[in-house]
């Protein structure tokens, strides 16, 4: 099966392992990820104001490319996923946004939110199936792993619709499928401090410190995440207590690719 794939700029630079192992694992699982043509940066964060049109255009370009190819669009970075999925929702639901974006871009075939946007974790759960992943594992990870969701994968729950935003299971089920033991921290869906790392580093110091401490106290040996900024904040502010890696790295290890 072929999918359109949106890597995003951080995955081409500081988060190369998130991208590299996403591609390798997809191939091993029998799927083909075709990069979107001439994609541009999603902007990192979604702007919620409805009159913010320009900040939504790069996402619409990627979405239109996938639609024209007749493919679903797979994302892997939590931030890109949040931005693209929310813009897609605006294009489907908000006439105000849809009209202005199409008037500006003048595509041959106006875009109306037709593309199905799926995060790589949803690709694993819903397209491949965790049962099939379990069968493909050659090197069970056998570690106690805490899943850190952060905010972007889950909220707003009504639009992201990946899982229950307050009590998610997808990453824990992923950990079980690759042979690990999930460790649940109450901070797994609380913010790491995000972009405040550039303007007020006290916030990520406090928030990320709490998250890593909590995972350690619950007995985790490792933390996994899908977001490069979460990874950065947790590593920078959590000390060297626990290794913090991308979920695609640990998947590659389990599939015997890494």
């Amino acid at each position: 099966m072929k999918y359109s794939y949106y890597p995003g700029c951080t995955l081409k630079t500081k988060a190369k392992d998130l991208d590299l192992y996403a591609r390798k694992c997809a191939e091993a699982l029998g799927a083909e990820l075709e990069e979107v043509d001439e994609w541009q940066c999603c902007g990192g964060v979604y702007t919620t104001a409805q009159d913010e049109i320009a900040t939504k255009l790069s996402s619409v370009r990627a979405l239109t490319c996938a639609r024209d190819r007749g493919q679903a669009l797979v994302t892997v970075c939590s931030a890109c996923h949040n931005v693209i999925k929310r813009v897609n929702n605006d294009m489907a639901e908000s006439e105000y946004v849809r009209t202005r974006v199409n008037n500006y871009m003048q595509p041959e075939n106006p875009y109306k939110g037709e593309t199905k946007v799926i995060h790589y974790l949803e690709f694993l759960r819903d397209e491949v199936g965790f049962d099939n992943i379990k069968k493909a594992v050659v090197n069970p990870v056998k570690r106690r792993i805490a899943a850190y969701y952060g905010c972007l994968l889950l909220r707003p729950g009504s639009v992201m619709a990946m899982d229950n935003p307050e009590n998610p299971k997808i990453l824990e089920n992923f950990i079980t499928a690759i042979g690990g033991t999930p460790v649940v921290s109450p901070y797994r869906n609380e913010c790491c401090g995000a972009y405040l790392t550039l303007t007020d580093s006290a916030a990520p110091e406090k928030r990320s410190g709490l998250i890593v401490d909590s995972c350690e106290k619950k007995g985790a040996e490792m933390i996994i995440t899908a977001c490069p900024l979460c990874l950065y904040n947790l590593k920078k502010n959590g000390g060297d207590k626990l290794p913090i890696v991308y979920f695609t790295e640990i998947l590659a290890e389990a599939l015997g690719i890494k």
Partner: protein
Amino acid sequence: MTDLQKQIENIKRISGANPEKCMRCGKCTAACPNYSEMEYHPHQFVYFIENGQLDRLLKSDSAFRCMTCFACVERCPRDVKPAKLIEAVRLTLIRRKDSNYLKPDEIPQKIDEDLPQQAIVSAFRKYTK
């Protein structure tokens, strides 16, 4: 209509949020991971916009302390969407001439070699126009 009233109407329009639905339960502030660093808390954004006290919010830097984590939106029992009101206040501030909260010259001293590009583009999107 005074300028302040016009700004309030604009904030309600671009946010798509209705502060009048708020029942002042304070759950948004209780859910906010950064409320302790804010002069005005999420429920006060809602209250001040509803009651014509936007000037207080515009004089404070509280809007820049919000991390857009959407915990307040997810957990509000009345679907008021406080984060959308806060974003509209932030936009009201940075859309003014020469009012960027983060300047490009400040970036070089703030970055280290591990900082993801995502952090820089996100901060620019939230703090500058």
